[in-house]
């Protein structure tokens, strides 16, 4: 499932965000945001509700066009690429409000996730040549593997909309992984998971990183974010107010005031 073939240099940024602006009417959702993600790292993106985190995800994935600024992926500007092209390049995501294809089974959801990594078009599907069949069989194997990876193997045939909320989130992670991303954007993956499930998710995310995939994580559960992130970026009202390793950010006055609150020491419970 590994996305990167090149050797990891460690300091070569996979994603660079430069001076990105986005406003909705009077609300300045993103205000000259800029930071970079290192390959195979986990970056936690935190900030109060309405800080602009999801908006930034939408801008990176191409769902929203930024008012200004530039986004470079693997050294290349992706400004003019459409949403699906960015996925093909290797940017996959999950959604804060869970956007599964509800009438489809868990397995089918993953298979759709494999869309950019398979080829068969309409004509090939009609003809169903041996090559198409092989591709289909391979896709199914991969999809089952991914379901197994997030622990949903036994629910492959269940309609995704009927799954409990937490499992839906895991399914979304698996679906995003199916795109064989180089960069994975996770929008509050732990919301709705209980603590033990959250812990499991943390392990999963680390394992994904170990495959060389870069992760940008939005998560309000500090026990998770602080414990697995290599770097934390903090937004508030569209502005970046802090950036640094978890320890430093936790002690940052501005961050405490805007986001963490007084008894912010969640890592040691």
């Amino acid at each position, binding site marked *: 499932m590994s996305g990167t073939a090149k050797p990891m240099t460690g300091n070569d940024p996979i994603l660079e965000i430069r001076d990105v602006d986005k406003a909705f009417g009077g609300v300045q959702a993103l205000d000259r945001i800029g930071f970079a993600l290192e390959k195979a790292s986990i970056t936690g993106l*935190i900030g*109060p509700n309405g800080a602009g985190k999801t908006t930034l995800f939408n801008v990176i994935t191409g769902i929203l066009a930024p008012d200004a600024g530039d986004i470079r992926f693997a050294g290349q500007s992706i400004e003019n690429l459409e949403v699906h092209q960015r996925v093909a390049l290797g940017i996959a995501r999950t959604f804060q409000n869970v956007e599964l294809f509800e009438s489809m089974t868990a397995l089918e959801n993953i298979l759709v996730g494999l869309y950019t990594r398979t080829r068969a078009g309409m004509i090939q599907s009609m003809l169903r040549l041996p090559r198409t069949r092989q591709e289909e069989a391979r896709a199914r194997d991969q999809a089952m593997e991914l379901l197994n990876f997030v622990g949903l193997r036994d629910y492959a045939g269940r309609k995704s909309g009927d799954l409990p909320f*937490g*499992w839906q989130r895991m399914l979304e992670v698996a679906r995003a992984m199916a795109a064989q991303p180089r960069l994975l954007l996770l929008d509050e993956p732990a919301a709705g998971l209980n*603590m033990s499930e959250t812990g499991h998710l943390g392990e999963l995310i680390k394992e994904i990183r170990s495959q060389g995939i870069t992760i940008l994580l939005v998560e*309000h559960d500090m026990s998770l974010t602080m414990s697995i992130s290599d770097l934390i970026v903090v937004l508030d009202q569209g502005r970046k107010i802090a950036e640094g390793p978890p320890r430093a950010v936790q002690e940052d006055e501005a961050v405490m005031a805007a986001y963490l609150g007084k008894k912010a020491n969640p890592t040691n419970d």
Partner: protein
Amino acid sequence: MLRIRNLKCFYSRIMAVKGVSLSVNPGEIICLIGANGAGKTTLLSAVCGLLADWSGQIDFEKKSIKGLEPPAIVRAGISLVPEGRQIFAPLSVFDNLRLGAYTMYKKKAHAAVQQDLESVMELFPILRQRQRQPAGTLSGGEQQMLAIARALMARPRLLLLDEPSMGLAPMVVEKILEVISLLRSRGLTIVLVEQNALAALEVSDRGYVFETGAVVLQGEAGELLADKDVKRAYLGKDYGDFYDAG
């Protein structure tokens, strides 16, 4: 205040709640915890009338609510903050709040509504700032605050909260837990479904632990916090092989 006996809930052929009994006393905060898919949301849906396909007994203030539809239940004094928020996206934040008080308006309690509007916006100042904005454009957390505020607008006596902290910043979670305690001190009874069991149990009086549609454990919040199994399954990092259990 609320008494549930041998409740079984169905989604066509699937039985999602398998004979649950619980009770809530006036002025209590009750916490329901449990893994994903354990049936907590389903139980709340049955209580507030959204789910009609159940058997057993649900009594609110000694009266059965069987066959009642949500509007009647809201009028009886139960409000729900649902999973997924269910706000009215194209309507303004302000209108969402006013509609929360729909039953109050129907009781001609305009002055009370005015008061409540003030007090919920006091509780969540961001809502005041965003009054005129279509609710659908709020950020996730802002929407969650709106959903809670809207439920309060009906002046319920029993408030059902389905994962109110989901997606909220730590500060806001704290705030909401505070609010919950505050509301209780004003005489509100609360049923709280939470994944953040640690925090939830801290503000609760008693708790029930759900697993695959049944109550497997119940007790004082403090006892549960100390319970080894609960700790292992819902609080600690030792998540073991949860998925086999689920």
